[in-house]
């Protein structure tokens, strides 16, 4: 048979190869959107602290050393799920975790932290969603790792776990910075 008659079969086989790879190999997750923030300077933000409108909270205050930013809300089921993990992470590392309370009821948020524990070094409020938009957040919870040079070097979409912390976050930082 002439080789060109195999072209349809060959093209289809290549396409199926892609599909197979999508299902089995690699980390393909159709729900994930690539973040253009990775390896770029962290977007500035300037807000006030939860429960204390006189206390400003801004990116500037944390630059110079690695830190983590976590977007959460009391309305978000995944945030409830990740909360104990965040507490464990906060216990394990001295890297500050800054929480941004995204479009949330302040009183409910304060109660939540009082009842369930507070893993955050500081919590800022984002009532109009502008900070979340600047950080490209599309579904809570989302957690960002910022390095000592002020660049976003990793992003986790969905609940954090201690395992993810160790493998994806801590592993990206120089050893001395984490503990």
């Amino acid at each position, binding site marked *: *048979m002439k080789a060109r008659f195999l072209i349809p079969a060959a093209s*289809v086989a290549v396409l199926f190869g892609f*599909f197979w790879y999508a299902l089995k190999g690699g980390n393909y997750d*159709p729900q994930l959107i*690539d973040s253009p923030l990775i390896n770029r300077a962290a977007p500035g933000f300037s807000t006030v602290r939860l429960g204390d409108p006189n206390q400003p909270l801004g990116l500037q205050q944390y630059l110079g050393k690695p830190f983590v930013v976590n977007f959460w809300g009391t309305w978000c089921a995944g945030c409830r799920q990740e909360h104990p993990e965040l507490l464990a992470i906060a216990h394990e590392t001295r890297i500050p975790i800054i929480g941004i309370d995204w479009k949330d009821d302040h009183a409910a948020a304060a109660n939540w932290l009082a009842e369930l524990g507070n893993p955050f070094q500081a919590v800022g409020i984002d009532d109009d969603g502008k900070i979340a938009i600047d950080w490209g957040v599309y579904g809570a919870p989302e957690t960002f790792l910022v390095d000592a040079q002020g660049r976003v070097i990793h992003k986790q979409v969905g609940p954090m776990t201690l395992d993810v912390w160790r493998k994806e976050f801590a592993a990206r930082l120089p050893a001395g910075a984490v503990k």
Partner: protein
Amino acid sequence: MNAELGQIALILALCLAVSQAVFGLVGAARGWGNWMAVTRPATVGQAGFVALAFLMLVSAFLANDFSVQYVATNSNSQLPTLYRVAAVWGAHEGSMLLWAMILALWSGAVALLSRSLPQGFACRVLGVLGIISAGILLFILLTSNPFSRILPAPFDGNDLNPLLQDPALAMHPPILYTGYVGFAVAFAFACAAMIEGRLDQTWARWTRPWTIVAWLFLTTGITLGSWWAYYELGWGGWWMWDPVENASFMPWLAGTALIHSLAATEKRGLYRSWTLLLALFTFSLSLLGTFLVRSGIIVSVHAFASDPLRGVFILGLLATFILGALTLYAMRAGQLRSSAGFELWSRESFLLFNNVLLIIAASLILLGTLYPLLLALLELGTISVGPPYFQLVFLVPVIPLLGLLIVGMHSAWKRARIAPLKQRLVGIVVAAVIAAVLLSLLFAGRMRTMVLVGLFLAIATMLSALSIPFDSLRRRLPVPRGVVGMAVAHFGVGMFALGATVASAYQSERDVSLAIGQSANVAGYDFKLTDMRMVEGPNYVAREAEVIISDAKGRVVATLHPQKRTYRVQQNPMTEAGIDVTWQRDLFVALGDNLGEGVWSLRLQYKPLIRYLWLGALFMALGGIIAATDRRYRTAGAREATGETVPERA
């Protein structure tokens, strides 16, 4: 007990499907008459058992048997009876069973209606269908069993997604599946022909009616889905270019090309290779659609909750069926040369251009749908390919297609006999230009090039299609059903294009905030909010508004009652739009939120000529019904049985 019976029925069906395949293919290959004789009964038996299993599932829903996991996830005791039946195909497992049943019923139909086919060929067709059925039934039994029990049984179920609680949407999957699963018959005919080495005009004539019937069901199914989306989703859209919608549209485009290609193969023995490939690819695109919807590989509201294991299994089935068939193709394709000749503007040429353009359209949609996936797999980031791309790119092959259709409908086989038709065609062109200009001025008071082109093509297509039977009747010549069907279907294409062009170009939409007693104006109509109250339905509560619409002269044109419903079980809000329909336009009102102080948000829309879109598509399906019942498909059977051979092209 019923669920267990259903389970057993499925297993028996699987055994029968395997028998169908083995006895059919081996029997035909060896010429063993007693093996071949088993094939038809096995097929009919398989159909019976799959149908039985399906009925068992329906009975579990009707009886509110929440100990069956699938029933518990998709139904509820407050669900009205019609929707309890529709819930059977509301999620993955049940819809897969529907798929299997429809395939089995098509196979049964082929078994019962193929007496006029030579026995060996018929057995091969049934054998191939048996392989496909066996694969699907195995998939159901191993990964997607609708009959598994959940113990202890929940007290009540999760309820059917309210979006699916609608009569049109209840009918949409069965009709759609009858269409796209029906292309398996053309696929099986093609495989049988390749196995036998018989790929002549007779094969084309046998395949054609089965393909037309599948095609017309697919046309109707897609139309129902589009119409439903328009009135149910609240924002007046009728086609979203969603990956799953594209997955049903691509087999439609390929199926349309197939029907036309079969015409040339049947008449002149031409394009056998193309027709064969189209027969294989149309069903392959159907299977691809099934894969995309159920594997979780693509993000879509239509996608069923999925599981990579299921995805891998379906991919395995796809690879077996499609690569198998394409390998057969590679082995046979070299033998398919024909020595027929034709002139440039003959019917054969027009059919060639038609094939090329439809295949380009299907390829562009395939590319656009899969591109984001391919980029993501190559780690090149995430992009979106949405309606702005598809709408633009789809027009590139479709505009020349319509232009060629207007002339091509009149073409003759082998010779270019357009000259005698010049007068008629010029008349059509002039009339269409005038009508296009008039319509433009009527709707917008001005003219835009693209809209004029669209209107011209649409109207010229309709006139051209009507002129064919009209001309024959005028000359008192008989008009065979095949010709009537063709004219009706092409008329439908033109009508669809008219509705799509006018609705897209001249629609208007406004979001307003109104208190009771206030009104807003859209496209010359005055919409006044006059009342707001709570109403109760069988399984929901709703806030209902009353909106009175008057025209520019102050006469009341319609009173609409848009609702915002909250279904009691799932607690999600749903919009039910109020629509006023006339032959010229739809007026559409959707209720939004309470903005406080007695003010409500509403979306008001004016959609001119939008009904013609769906009406046109229904004409296409009607044309298909008429064409499929042409005498030559019914009497040909008698000729075959008497052993008369049809002269073949080399």
